[in-house]
Each structure stands twice: as C-alpha cells, then as structure tokens.
C-alpha cells in the first residue's frame, strides 16, 4: 500500500462562495481558498462558522467533496452546527482546519473499483471517483443507498462517474432494499471496495467483503472535538482488542482492522479495559 505525502495542515478562514440546497436536509457548501487546499480524496476538515462565538463550540468533521481553490463539503442538517451551515449565505466566513487524516489508499491497478455509499457518505467517494476518472482507469462500479429517493444527494454526479446502482429502503427509487442486498453480485477476486456510510451499513459491507476475500477500505465517522490527535474523543475498537483514532489513523482504514461488532454499540461501563497499541 502506498502512502502519499500529506499536505501540511492549516487553520484558515474562507468566505462561503456558494451554498447549494439540494433538496431535503442536504446542502453543498463551497468555500473560496485562494492558496488552494491540497486535500486528497478521503481526507477531512474541521469546519466552524467564524462568527459562531462560543456556541456551537466545536468545529464539525466533514469529508472533503472537492479540494483546490474551491474546497467543498456535503452536509445534512442534523443539529445546531449543520443547521447554521444550512442557512449560511455567500460571503459568510468559515474556519476550516485541514486537510486532516488518512486519505483513501490508491485503488489497485489490477482490480475494478466498487464504491458503496450510504447517504452523505457519498462525499469522500465522489472525490475518489473524480480522481479515478482523471487517471483514465475503468469506470468504477457503485451502489448508492438511502432510506428513500430524497436521501440520495449528488446521485447524478455519481451516475456520471460510475456504473451506478441505486437502492432505497422504501423502494421509491432503484432496487428496494439496502446496498448490501445487491453488493454480493459485484464482489469477485478482481474487485476492490471503498465504502462510506452509516456504521451498520459499513459493518455489513465489511463482512461481505471479508467472506469473499475482497479488499475493503472504509471511511469512519465518529464524534470528534479536535480532528488532529489530541482530544482522543474518536476511538474505534479494532480486531486486535485496541483502539484506533479515527482522526489520525483514519478516517480511511482497512475495514478488516475494525471490530464492527463493537464499533456500532458502546460496551457497558465496567467492560474490560482494552490495551493500548504499542
């Protein structure tokens, strides 16, 4: 696995260039960064309104949708911070700390890429799909799932860049069911999966891939205060009975490292202390 050199992280204030409301609770926020954001697909940024004052206090971890002079993020309004982002007007200043974390590993030349996205998890996968398109490699296959047709932001762009299948739980678009109901058909010895979405979805994707011996890379999402390795608020249990920190060792990791049975639900108080990785 090659590890590309990562750009120096910086905290900078950028004006919001535009906010596109793309239906339901989803928005794309694009910022103006004249110096340029040297983010790789899969990396993330901590985003906060420069005029928020002391509440909401913490920046929000967001995968880059694009980098360069117009870094952008995809948000779903779920709380106070994203509510403000979803109302922001062009010109409003935001602070972005980034680029942070481990990017997606480079797709293996000998394997066909399969992207598996759930909801806003599409953001880092679209970034990856664009970079794959730029190399002239074969179009990735992809599956994109949501609860209903309303929960598939940016599906048109994914359709342009990949051979896309859609699933919805209510059957309002594509195949009724979940991404994992159709994933089996796309797995094979010459395939490689990249996934981002809810933990339960990624756990099932990881399980299917492991059973077929297909490499699987997952982008983890956890609460996070700092994004750069000091708050220690983002531990993810690993199969070797330790934790990895999603901000520094992730968010993109080999799915086989993650203990998905524990990632999804916190053990009860009093559970055995896990050992620290050396």
């Amino acid at each position, binding site marked *: 696995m090659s590890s590309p050199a990562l750009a120096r992280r910086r905290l900078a204030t950028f004006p919001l260039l535009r906010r596109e409301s793309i239906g339901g609770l989803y928005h794309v926020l694009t910022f103006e960064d004249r110096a340029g954001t040297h983010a790789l697909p899969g990396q993330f940024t901590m985003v906060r309104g420069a005029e928020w004052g002391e*509440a909401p206090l913490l920046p929000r971890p967001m995968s880059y949708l694009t980098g360069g002079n117009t870094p952008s993020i995809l948000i779903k309004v779920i709380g106070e911070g994203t509510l403000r982002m979803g109302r922001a007007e062009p010109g409003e200043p935001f602070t972005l700390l980034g680029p942070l974390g481990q990017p997606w590993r480079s797709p293996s030349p000998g394997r066909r890429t399969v992207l598996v996205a759930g909801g806003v998890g599409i953001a880092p996968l679209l970034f990856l799909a664009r970079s794959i398109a730029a190399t002239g490699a074969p179009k990735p296959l992809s599956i994109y799932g949501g609860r209903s047709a309303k929960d598939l932001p940016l599906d048109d762009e994914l359709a342009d860049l990949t051979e896309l299948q859609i699933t919805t739980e209510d059957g309002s678009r594509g195949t009724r069911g979940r991404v994992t109901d159709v994933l089996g058909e796309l797995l094979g010895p010459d395939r490689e999966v990249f996934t981002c979405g809810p933990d339960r979805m990624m756990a099932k994707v990881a399980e299917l891939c492991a059973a077929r011996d297909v490499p699987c890379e997952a982008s983890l999402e956890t609460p996070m205060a700092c994004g750069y*390795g*000091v708050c220690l608020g983002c*531990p993810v249990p690993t199969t070797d009975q330790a934790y990895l920190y999603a901000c520094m060792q992730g968010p993109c990791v080999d799915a086989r490292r993650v203990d998905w049975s524990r990632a999804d639900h916190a053990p009860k108080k009093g559970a055995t202390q896990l050992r*620290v990785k050396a």
Partner: protein
Amino acid sequence: MSALALTLGGLTLKNPVLTASGCFGYGLEYDDFYDVAELGGICTKGLSLHARAGNPPERICETPAGMLNAIGLANVGVETFCRDKLPILRQRGVTVVANIFASSVADFVAITERLNAETGVAAIELNISCPNVTEGGIEFGKDARMAGEVTRAVRAATKLPVWVKMSPEAGSIVGVAKACEDAGADAITAINTIRGMSIDVEQNKLRLANRTGGFSGPALRPIALRIVWEIVGAVSIPVIAIGGIGTTRDALEFMAAGASAVQVGTANFVDPSAAKRVLDGLRAHCEAHHCDVQSLIGAARG
C-alpha cells in the same frame, strides 16, 4: 527579564500562558501550527505508571458553549513518554510540566521517581481530580487529608516544583488547596472539569458510555473564576487558572482575580493555535499598557 516572564513557585516561566493537560497531547502534535516552545509551558496528557487505553466510545459530546469528555486518561505511560516524547520536547526547548495520575500514593511516587531520572521536566502537576476513572483520581482531590498525603509524598520524592490540580467537586476546595500548600505544594492549579451528563432524548440514551463526563469550555469560566478567586484569597503559593480560557481577555480576567498564570484547554480543540493567540494578545496588551505581567496579577482584588 522580559515583561512577560515570571517566577512561579521557584520556577521561571517565559510567560504565563500554558496549555492544559488532556487538551494538548504531548505537545508534539502542533508542528504544522506553531512552535510550542514559545509558550510558558505545556502540561502533558496525564501520565500513569503504565499505558492506558482509555474508556470505550462514545467519549465526548458537545454541550452549550462547552463539552463533556470521558476519555479515561488514555496515555502512553510514563516510560514511553520519557523514551519517545520528552527527548524531542527537551531538544526543542519546550517547558514541560508533567501531569501525572495514579490510583495510589505509592504509584504517584513511582511516576515521580521515574521523572526524576530525566532532564527536561520543569515541574510535576498532580492530577488528583480526574472525574472519569473509577479508581483513585478524584477521590484524592475531594478530601483535604488525602490530597495532603499525596502532595507530601510526592514533595518528599522530588526536587522538582510540585503543582496540584484541584477538583471543583471537593466539599471545601479552599480546604484542599490549603492542605496541599501545607504539604509543600509549590502552586495550585484550578480547576479540573466538573462532572456533567447528556442524554439523547430521541433514543433515550446517555450520550457518553461512561455515563458522566468532565464538563469544560467557555460555559465553565464563571465557576472557575469564582474558585480561583477563593483559593487566591486563602493560600500564599501561586495559583494557575484553568477553566474556559480561550482568549487574551479571558486570561486577563483570571489574572485580575489573582492567578499568576493560565492554562488554555478546550479552546485548543477549536483552534490549534489558541494558546499562541492568547500569548500574542497578552504581549500586545502589556506593550500597549507599558506594564509587565506581574502588575496584572490580582489587579481586581483591590
């Protein structure tokens, strides 16, 4: 001596702006942002005798103008710190305050003795006030007799300055602070986080796996200020303030209450260069007012 330098319990600091334990890693995570050797000092993540993995997730959640954390003192252990982190900090000229944690007096002393063997540790800060571990921790900090006992044992074990970090949950914080002073502490740090809780009402589920977590951030500031004020009035050793400090104005407020120095904590999460901003602002303040930091300490006490 520059206008920002000060002597604090026998230790000379470049300036009165430090970073708080648990909010600054080991000081080696900031290479992309600024030279942490500029600061008055850094307080390390709490070091225990052996490495600790910490609590299961979820460990943190946001609250109005603050946050809760129940990290559980995840740390590399004193041995790894001395081997892998301290040499780099020492070489860079960083003023290192080793924050240490144990569940017994004997282990506090053992960690201290390990640190005695190293150069490059400027002071030891005793964490007798962590709210997030079941054994030891806060129990030492709630009781004046036990706090005094730990302080006395560590005092006897080292020549380094000893600071003791107060819990806001002690019945009589002033009583604990005085007991630590009597036991030979060189300075008092106040305050650690105060236990809080948060529930996700949509799932009727506690947000933290540990159920409770330490509350920190700007919302804590008025409580911290009141406690610092009380301790300053009761002890004659220096008091180092901590609690929601994120701007120069906040630092000036605590110094006016009598704090000799400040620690920037949660604000580092919002902005990695928060402590440097506080320091730069303090320097500008002293230049604009033609004063040194000594004149700021206790300015509001009359």
